[in-house]
């Protein structure tokens, strides 16, 4: 809380100073209500049925999210605050400095240092070549990500751009860096960009402290007045994933999920957006994520869920009941990756009419016919934007989507920009 107060004081000071200094700032305040209906299938639901005092199901919540962005001379900052009250619980607050960096130029190069958001890839639902940091994709509401600590050098001319980034330089002498997951490790990343007529071409290279090398390429091409086509592919020598420890059998006393570095992983995406004269847009994306769990790994996960449930016999000892519930709770960690399934199809339709923006999208996972369907309606006024919608995770009982912790989410938000 004291951290929150310090940041709030800093914001007030910034706002006051802006009256006198040449400060450019903007921001937004957003009350949000999210109603979550927990799934009745899956390991979390099973665990909560066994030990509701131990396993908490996802709760509905109300929150007030604030964001302030500012620029003063060479300094840029973006600060976010969130006050949330889960149902049947007390308010709690959190604050974060999403960006705080200095930038300048010398010898024809632009330099930045500090905490900064860097996003490079071209896709919507999946971005394998965001190799500096991975954004959470397909969020219900737009949100600013938290940047990475980095040092960046960039060069631009009319049609090309070169970017060199040293990510997490503070980890150079950090012995714990080898256990940092994915983009948290120290890394060097480079991006080359060239605009050639109707196409934007990108090349990427990254060298991570323990994930080693990776190479990628992406293109976004405007085929005609209405159609844009994009593609992205990446090969990685190593990729960090949270995987089940095969040595863990039966009931275990701590989470059996470990960060492991998988070797020789591929990721690829192909997508297109078509926009009609009457402002209807249709998007389709197909992607393969070689870092997601394989079909065999999901089969093993399902088998362990069944085995854990069968371990408990009604009337058994209380310690066993709590142990089984806890082990079922840890099974939820399998959902932590960017993609649940390796092969994914995403379709999205949006319409822009008189400030109203209805949208409907679906993520479909052919391996188990699971799907995540989202319908939303936005309205943009002069200073206020209102969003509301629903997301349903569905599919056959054995599909991953049907066993995610939340079955249905309703949301409503009003954003006031200043």
């Amino acid at each position, binding site marked *: 809380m004291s951290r929150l107060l310090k940041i709030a004081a800093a914001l007030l000071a910034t706002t006051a100073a802006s009256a006198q200094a040449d400060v450019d700032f903007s921001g937004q305040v957003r009350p949000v209500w999210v109603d979550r209906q927990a799934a009745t299938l899956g390991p979390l639901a099973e665990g909560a049925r066994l030990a509701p005092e131990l396993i908490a199901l996802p709760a509905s919540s109300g929150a007030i999210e604030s964001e302030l962005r500012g620029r003063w001379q060479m300094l840029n900052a973006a600060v976010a605050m969130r006050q949330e009250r889960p149902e049947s619980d007390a308010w709690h607050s959190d604050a974060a400095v999403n960006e705080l960096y200095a930038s300048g130029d010398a010898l024809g190069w632009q330099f930045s240092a500090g905490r900064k958001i860097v996003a490079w890839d071209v896709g919507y639902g999946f971005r394998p070549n965001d190799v500096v940091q991975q954004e959470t994709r397909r969020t219900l509401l737009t949100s*600013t990500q938290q940047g990475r600590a980095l040092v960046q050098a960039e060069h631009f001319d009319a049609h090309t751009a070169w970017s060199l980034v040293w990510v997490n330089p503070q980890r150079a002498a950090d012995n714990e860096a080898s256990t940092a997951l994915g983009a948290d490790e120290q890394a060097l990343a480079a991006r080359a960009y060239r605009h050639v007529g109707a196409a934007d071409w990108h090349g990427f290279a990254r060298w991570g402290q323990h994930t080693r090398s990776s190479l990628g390429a992406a293109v976004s091409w405007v085929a005609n007045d209405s159609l844009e086509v994009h593609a992205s592919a990446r090969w990685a020598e190593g990729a960090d994933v949270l995987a089940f420890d095969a040595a863990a059998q039966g009931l275990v006393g701590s989470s059996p999920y470990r960060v492991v570095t998988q070797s020789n992983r591929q990721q690829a995406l192909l997508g297109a957006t078509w926009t009609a004269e009457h402002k209807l847009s249709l998007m389709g994306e197909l992607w393969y994520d070689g870092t997601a769990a394989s079909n065999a790994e999901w089969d093993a996960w399902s088998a362990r869920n069944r085995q854990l449930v069968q371990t408990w016999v009604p009337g058994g000892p209380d310690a066993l009941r709590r142990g089984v519930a806890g082990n079922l709770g840890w099974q939820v960690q399998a959902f932590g990756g960017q993609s649940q399934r390796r092969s994914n199809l995403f379709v999205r339709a949006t319409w822009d009419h008189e*400030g109203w923006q209805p949208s409907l999208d679906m993520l479909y996972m052919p391996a188990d016919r699971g799907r995540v369907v989202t319908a939303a309606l936005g309205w943009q006024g002069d200073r206020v934007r209102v969003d509301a919608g629903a997301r349903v995770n569905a599919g056959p009982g054995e599909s991953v989507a049907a066993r995610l912790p939340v079955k249905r989410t309703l949301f409503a938000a009003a954003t006031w920009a200043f």
Partner: protein
Amino acid sequence: MTAIRHIVLLAILLTGITARAQGTADLLKAADRYRMSATNMQVDTQISTFNTDGSPDKERRYTVFAQANHQSLVLMQSPAEKGQKVLMLADDFWLLMPNSQRPLRITPMQKLLGDASTGDIATMSWAEDYSAQLVGDESCGDVPCIHLSLTAARKGVTYARIELWIGKARHEPLRADLYVQSDKLAKQARFVMDKPAAPTAVVEMVLQDQLSNHKETRVRYLARKERTVPEAWLNPMFLARNPSLD
């Protein structure tokens, strides 16, 4: 002898056509000067939208860097859109959102999305983008005017065809009918000059939607100054850095 006569006639005809084309091009350039007094400019613009009953709907502020060779950068300045940018390099377009550090490559059709067509704000010259045909002399209210029919000379323009009426004496733009690709009448424009008796600049363009909502949009030019922006400002990856563009 007959062949020579034919060649001479053809030469006279071609010379006439070329002179006429040159004449209409000069008319367009003259009309353009009322909005773009220099090749490279910074223009601060205010867009006000009104409902069909005349009540105010929305107001937006934009800064436009209109540069040579069909290059424009539009900065959204209103709170609801602050930080958004649209970059137009001839037929290539990018949208930059404040919460994203990557430029979105957009199609000409996507450029039309949003409250105001970015093309209405950023396009300030017809001579570079359209070829014109003289339709004839007409009367625009009390003012004698020239009717020109403009056809897009490149694919990235917002309107495929424009029927334009300019003053006969000073060639200031008076009104225009704007047609989209499907040849539907999208908007009708009326130009408000600074000094009606001796106009030097367009201060406002009033657009009447004819395609969907029939709302009125007033594009008011608040300030204009000659300005050439650095080359890097027209690189979408540079803009993704969210640089200061003052």
